[in-house]
């Protein structure tokens, strides 16, 4: 099977200065890779490079087995969706209008959405429980609500590869879990996902594999179950960590408090 995204000795950065170096990994269709690491470790830079905004300084980045430059913008957008960290525009669109924009790369010459495009958008909003926001102006919504709309937009885009930049930021606990459950359901139906996460526990419950980044270098990469441990997370974040197993058998990690 061709990997949806694969990096081979990849270095990327701004100008000639590398932000992340020596990345080698594969993301297969139907799998979720969680990228963990402290702020400024190059997680978002990695996602950006997969969208072609930062050409590789070294090594190769392949999308669906082809080099990135083989994709024209629109063709790329038909297969790869991105959920940004922040969204500040207040252009005055409604929730549904924003989600419908996810259909843009699939529309014909006149850019007119069909009933089918509307149905896709509606289904994506239903999937994330945000249909009540359809008629509201995005400028009037909370950060978390906008976040959910951006996720719905990415789902409406019907991508084969989904790049999530901190998808759970601004979300309350219930929505964090709900969103990752919905994403996981799509992964089980064949979607490939790269998700930058800050919560090791959420990563432990949804990710097939994890990539640990620190100061632009790979600290570890492998199956979630094998790789995530209190020691590794401790050296990743520079913070003493403890691991516990709940009654139901779920492993959880927490910083060890020294007040």
């Amino acid at each position, binding site marked *: 099977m061709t990997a949806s995204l694969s990096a081979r000795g990849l270095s990327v950065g701004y100008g000639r200065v590398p932000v992340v170096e020596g990345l080698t990994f594969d993301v297969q269709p139907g799998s979720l890779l969680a990228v963990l690491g402290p702020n400024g470790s190059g997680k978002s830079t990695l996602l950006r490079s997969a969208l072609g905004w930062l050409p590789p300084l070294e090594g190769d980045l392949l999308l669906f087995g082809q080099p990135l430059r083989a994709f024209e913008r629109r063709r790329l957008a038909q297969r790869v969706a991105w959920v*940004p960290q922040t969204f500040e525009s207040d252009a005055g669109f409604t929730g549904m209008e924003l989600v419908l924009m996810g259909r843009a790369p699939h529309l014909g010459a006149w850019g007119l959405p069909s009933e089918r495009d509307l149905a896709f958008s509606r289904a994506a909003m239903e999937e994330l429980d945000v249909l009540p926001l*359809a008629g509201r102006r995005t400028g009037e919504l909370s950060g978390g609500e906008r976040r959910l709309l951006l996720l719905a937009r990415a789902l409406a885009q019907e991508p084969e590869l989904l790049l999530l930049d901190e998808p759970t930021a601004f979300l309350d606990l219930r929505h964090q879990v709900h969103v990752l459950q919905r994403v996981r359901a799509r992964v089980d139906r064949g979607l490939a996902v790269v998700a930058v996460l800050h919560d090791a526990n959420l990563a432990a419950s949804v990710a097939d594999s994890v990539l640990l980044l620190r100061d632009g270098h790979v600290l570890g990469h492998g199956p979630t179950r094998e790789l995530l441990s209190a020691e590794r997370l401790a050296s990743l974040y520079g913070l003493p960590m403890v691991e516990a197993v709940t009654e139901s058998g779920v492993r959880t990690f927490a910083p060890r408090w020294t007040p």
Partner: protein
Amino acid sequence: MSVALAQDRLAVAREVRFSAGRATLILCVLAACVVAALLASATLGEYPLGLRRALLDPLSVDASVFWRLRVPRAVLGALVGAALGASGSALQALLKNPLADPFILGVSGGAALGATVALALGLTAFAGPSLFAFAGSVAAMGLVLTVGGTRRSPYAALLTGVVFNAFASAAITGIKTLISPDKVGEILYWLAGSLGYETPRTLAGAAVLQVACVGVLWRQSGRLNLLSLGDEDASSLGVPVDRTRILVLLATSFSVAGAVALSGLVGFVGLIVPHLLRLLLGPDQRLLVPASALGGAAFLVLSDLFTRLLFPVFHTELPVGVVTAVLGGPFFIYLLQRSEART
């Protein structure tokens, strides 16, 4: 149709305001407004004109006034208004700045400097000020695009334009202090923006230019929607950001340069018309670009009619730019306060 289905349709119309049917309807209404404005402008004025006689008797004075004076002037107003309206709407989306004005990218400074040079040198024959204004605005646009247009951030182009406009205005002040007072008067009148007589050939050329430029903007309007969310959002949704930005900047610049060359600096049309239409119709550029073109045309034709009807009051013709500013300024402040109160 069942009640549930009807309610469903209503909900969809509230959630997604753009539809081909609604857009067509609105554009037809606006087109009718333009035709009505053109007819009003061509028939009303100091000389009371019988439309029937003007159309049926080609040798009458009415026909002569109608075809040789009023129709060309009304058509000129419509072309300039359409250029400013469509460019204003497109630039506001592209620069993500609701206060962007079609003159903001240095086009006004370039045009004003070009016309001032022509008038100062006495090159009034062969449409000297117009040609110089066009050359000046195209040169300014070239400068702004090379310095700032290809960058990722829209602010580079914006800042270069603002700086160039300031430079041009200083240069114009310098020229004005060096020349005779009667030439200063001519320059002032030109800068204020006014519609005069243009030959049918000039009008035809301007029409071709404006149809092409507004056409390009309309074609790009779907991408402008996505760009108004941010460059990276737009790019991730398949918009070739740099190419689209250059195309839109070129189209607006040529459109505005063509308009300014024939009318001088008619302010506020490009600001007020898109703003008002956005409040009424929503932010979708696929509708706003053509609607602003039609709305701008109707607004400028009516403003020009107003200056002609005020002739008996002031015993001179006010520049139409003064009327659009006097009507537009207070209205704009009202809009601004309203939008600030909302957020």
